[in-house]
């Protein structure tokens, strides 16, 4: 199908983009890479009166290290995937990016766009949650930062206001020696995962776990952290038994959706298995260079 008609606005600066969003309050939508928005428009699942294109806004580009990492919202997946800075300062993100669609999708898709789209089955919302990242947001009146935990409010829904533009992603400094892992299961390479798990583990001088992150994909209306399971890891010594028990705990409170790819019970079992594998892989990478 073809998208319904809209007015197209090519913004060349962040000021112009937020100005357009303010002017067409509620009737405008931002297009970044368009890899999720254009299908929604083509299938007429969404329609817009005004489309604000931010592809040519220079100050939304680029990846910089500042202790942590600051990534411009228009940075394409492919650029981040190939970035030595991302590999060094956010290896979990570097791995997560490779699971996004196919190369042709990653050549256009953007980090900011994926986060603003907030698909619970997508990799980047879970990555931002796992890394305790935040996003910078602007409208015509000012700037604010939103923590990952406050960004995703529901299925394809964020706490961004209609006149706000996500301008950058900030990730805290990567703790040296932490292990990380992304595990997903999909019917075909490049498809959205039926479910997925990503984990980060760190150990103290005594070899016991002192920081743990578990984020789950495709099991709830938003990407979620398995906080109780994370707590159960703290103070533990890495072992297969620990991974197995924590993997059970990680899915105890989730009610995954059922669809033609799998029932809720199947997804729960699958997710538990992926958490277990992810924890084992993260543990195996503790102390390894990113």
């Amino acid at each position, binding site marked *: 199908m073809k998208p319904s008609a809209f007015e197209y606005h090519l913004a060349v600066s962040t000021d112009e983009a937020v100005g357009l969003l303010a002017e067409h309050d509620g009737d405008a939508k931002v297009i970044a890479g368009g890899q999720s928005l*254009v299908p929604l428009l083509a299938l007429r699942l969404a329609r817009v009166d005004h489309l604000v294109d931010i592809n040519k806004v220079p100050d939304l580009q680029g990846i910089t290290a500042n202790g942590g990492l600051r990534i411009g919202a228009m940075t394409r997946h492919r650029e981040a995937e190939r970035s030595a800075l991302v590999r060094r300062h956010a290896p979990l993100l570097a791995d997560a990016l490779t699971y996004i669609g196919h190369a042709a999708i990653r050549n256009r898709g953007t980090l900011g766009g994926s986060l603003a789209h907030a698909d619970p089955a997508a990799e980047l919302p879970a990555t931002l949650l796992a890394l305790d990242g935040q996003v910078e947001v602007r409208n015509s009146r000012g700037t604010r930062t939103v923590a990952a935990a406050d960004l995703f409010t529901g299925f394809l829904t964020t706490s961004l206001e209609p006149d706000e533009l996500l301008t950058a992603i900030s990730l805290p400094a990567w703790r040296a020696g932490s292990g990380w892992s992304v595990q997903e299961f999909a019917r075909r390479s490049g498809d959205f995962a039926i479910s997925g798990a990503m984990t980060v583990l760190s150990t103290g001088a005594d070899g016991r776990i002192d920081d743990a992150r578990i984020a789950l994909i495709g099991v709830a209306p938003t990407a979620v952290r398995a906080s109780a399971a994370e707590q159960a890891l703290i103070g533990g010594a890495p072992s297969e038994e620990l991974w197995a028990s924590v993997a059970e705990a990680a899915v105890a409170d989730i009610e995954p959706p059922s669809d033609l790819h799998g029932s809720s019970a199947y997804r729960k079992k699958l997710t538990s298995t992926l958490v277990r594998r992810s924890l084992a892989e993260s543990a195996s990478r503790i102390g390894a260079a990113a």
Partner: protein
Amino acid sequence: MSRRPVHVKINGVEREGYVEPRKTLVDFIREDLELTGTHVGCEHGVCGACTVLLDGEAVRSCLMFAVQAEGCEIRTIEGMAGPDGQLHPLQEAFRDNHSFQCGFCTPGFMMTAAALLEEGPLSEEDLRHELSGNLCRCTGYQSIVAGVMDAFGRSTPAAGQAADAATEAAR
């Protein structure tokens, strides 16, 4: 809704059109520029039939609007063979390996493979992963994989340079 001018350089030729913003790049290429070699399949980014090279990188031309390609360089299946009709090594490899049956998906596979060729040879496993974004309902993929693997071994200027660089790096 008002039409807008679009200027692109497609297969080395400067072209312009005047389009509604909602027109996708693939429809612009096929309907306005009358280059119907690029096929449009699912129209929502799943099948890969509409893959073209945009400023050298493989993209789905159904997942962007023509107005967004303003000033860009595009390469389509029509730009693969030389002006004298000499087939591109990838086309020769596809012909020699029977890498198509009905041919509907072929332009998309060809442009996806052309981007891969620029970056140098891949293992068959990696190639299968890279080609997984393009759907074929006839061949079962085996002959397509064989065709692209064959093309990696044939001399193209870009592949030659990549091989030289790899040899250089190995020293």
